[in-house]
């Protein structure tokens, strides 16, 4: 059976790939397109390490079929920094040591950006609920939550 031809946009770049009907978007990103920043933790939508946005909506790429990317705009962790210039969330995660082993970090960054794009003044509780689908087994979460709060505060300051 012929493979499915998919035309999509990934991090602003028009991209084509061939895939099977039951391949996930995560599989194609990592194994075919070499975008290995999105991680496979659980493969069942529980851990959030594969978080990407599809048409602006935060999703687990392990629970999206690759052919569903047809005509969509996909944003992955690889599109977050502009060249050498880190995104404010990436900078703050480094500054505040909001990561240890790093496996969950791309997912946390993508999910945190999706939150701050909607709400630049989230409460700590709102951040914790928003990020409940991102699991981290190293940090104990506090540093991540504080980093997101700091970036939100900076965003509000610079919007003044």
């Amino acid at each position: 059976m012929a493979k499915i031809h998919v035309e999509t946009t990934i991090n602003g770049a028009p991209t084509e790939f061939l895939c099977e009907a039951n391949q996930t978007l995560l599989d194609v990103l990592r194994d075919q397109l070499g975008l290995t920043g999105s991680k496979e933790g659980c493969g069942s939508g529980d851990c959030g390490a594969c978080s990407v946005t599809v048409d602006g909506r935060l999703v687990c790429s392990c629970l999206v079929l690759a052919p569903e990317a047809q005509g969509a705009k996909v944003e992955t962790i690889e599109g977050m920094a502009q060249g050498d210039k880190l995104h404010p969330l990436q900078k703050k995660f480094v500054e505040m040591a909001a990561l240890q082993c790093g496996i969950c970090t791309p997912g946390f960054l993508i999910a945190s950006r999706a939150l701050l794009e909607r709400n630049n003044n989230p409460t700590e509780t709102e951040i914790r609920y928003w990020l409940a689908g991102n699991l981290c087994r190293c940090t104990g979460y506090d540093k991540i939550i504080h980093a997101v709060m700091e970036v939100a505060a900076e965003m509000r300051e610079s919007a003044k």
Partner: protein
Amino acid sequence: MTDILYKVAKTVREAASLMAAAKGKGRILAGGTDLLVQMKAGMVAPGTIIDVKKIPEMVSITETKGSYRIGAATPAAVIGEHKKLKKAWPGVVEAINLIGSTQVQGRASAGGNLCNASPAADSVPALVAAGAIVTIQGPKTRRTVPVEKFTSGPGKTTLKAGEIVVSLTLPARPKASGDAYLRLIPRTEMDIAVVGVGVSLTMKGDTCVSARVGLGAVAPTVLLVEAAAKALTGSKLDATALDAAANACSAACRPIDDKRGTIRYRTKIAGVLLRRATAIAADRARGISKQGH
């Protein structure tokens, strides 16, 4: 190489035809948050995956004279962002927004939650309380069924060959109505209900003039508890009425004993949640905004 087909349906009729043509091996792809997990676990092996998200009727919310029609594949996050729907049916929207994480919310749908047919599905007790009607498309005809009659057991629905769920319709609300959904889970987020209770009420002054109660995770299917509704209707939601309604919920329980909760615990909690959900629904009916989940 696999022999699985991926088809994007453009119309509801096309989706139903593809479903019929797949001869029992068709699977509808809405958000995929159950389907993909089940495929990976080897629990299902579809011959044809039918993506219904390009069908406008299945991914939109429309209002007609106070009645809301929610497309079966509309993502939970989109439902949560619909301010008018949330104002009319806060309990239904909260229940739908309890399904999974933010990422899961971006994909999961009320239609999928219903078709997965888990007795613990969070959206279903609230939809039962709301009196939601399920619209079903077959290869030739459409039919409707009350949501409480849709499932027949854990993982089992009453859909016939070639039928798909198109939408859920919530009736127009009389004035002074309110609803609420509460569930008990051992943690604060991302877990499966041990018990879930949905209550929808209409008040006239201090008197409850109509009520519906949906009860989840305590029987093979989500239950409509008519005896509890009867105990509330015509009362001032006083202690006697609440006792009777709580007892009716406990009496309706036919739960399993498992690691999440014992039979005794679930049976007791069903009554506790009925009281709390009723209080929130009544406050909402009186125009007092109250946070449920």
